[in-house]
């Protein structure tokens, strides 16, 4: 096996690959996105690449996981290794998408690898949603939109309360029910 093939094989086991939630977010983002786009927690970069291809927009994809950033880069997404929104300038993006790691996870059962970072939202399922919503108003341009995927497992009403606290109005742009959860894409505007 070549080094490149080995590296790709490794990346696939440590990077979240597109699933139902990705499809739902991509569909909503293709419809709603405009201007300069950021996808936070881009993972494989699939959603970001869909937006870039379908809408011809400039899309930046950020992820905590360097393996994910590399996969996103291979999909021609402008990739950055970052912690949520911390290295982005004020008012930098017109559209910000986020499919957060949202599974509520018992601290005793955390398994501490890249896949856990991609899936686990801590005890409440909201451990990444909270800091994201607290900072997204800084990075979003004045007339911009945030597209946030919310699972019923994460507590829909609790997330709406955080959205409200952050000073955003919300609108449901897409929703789909599965046996164990309902996934909703919210568009947040000021």
């Amino acid at each position: 096996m070549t080094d490149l093939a080995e590296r790709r094989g490794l990346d696939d086991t440590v990077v979240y690959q597109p699933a139902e939630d990705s499809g739902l977010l991509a569909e909503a983002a293709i419809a709603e996105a405009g201007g300069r786009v950021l996808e936070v927690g881009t993972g494989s970069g699939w959603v970001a690449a869909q937006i870039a291809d379908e809408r011809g927009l400039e899309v930046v994809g950020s992820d905590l996981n360097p393996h994910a950033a590399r996969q996103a880069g291979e999909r021609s997404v402008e990739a950055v290794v970052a912690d949520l929104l911390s290295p982005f300038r004020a008012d930098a993006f017109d559209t910000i998408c986020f499919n957060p790691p949202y599974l509520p996870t018992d601290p005793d059962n955390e398994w501490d690898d890249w896949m856990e970072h991609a899936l686990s939202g801590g005890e409440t399922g909201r451990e990444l949603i909270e800091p994201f919503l607290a900072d997204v108003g800084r990075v979003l341009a004045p007339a911009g939109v945030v597209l946030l995927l919310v699972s019923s497992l994460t507590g829909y009403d609790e997330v709406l309360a955080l959205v409200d606290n952050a000073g955003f109005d919300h609108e449901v742009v897409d929703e789909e029910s599965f046996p164990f959860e309902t996934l909703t894409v919210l568009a947040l505007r000021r």
Partner: protein
Amino acid sequence: MKDSLMDVVCCPLDKADLELDADERNETEVLSGTLTCTECGETYPIEDGIPNLLPPDMRDEAAA
């Protein structure tokens, strides 16, 4: 990374401007180099065309 990324990134610690120092480029992108904060002087590596803008403590943890 493309040069245009400079319009949207800043230092994750103090949100100040970054200065790009490219070691290696192709026609469209910076392949390797360094981003340096103009305020606190912290440096962030660009490797294989991807800037690592994690705060230093998280970067060290991720590398371990």
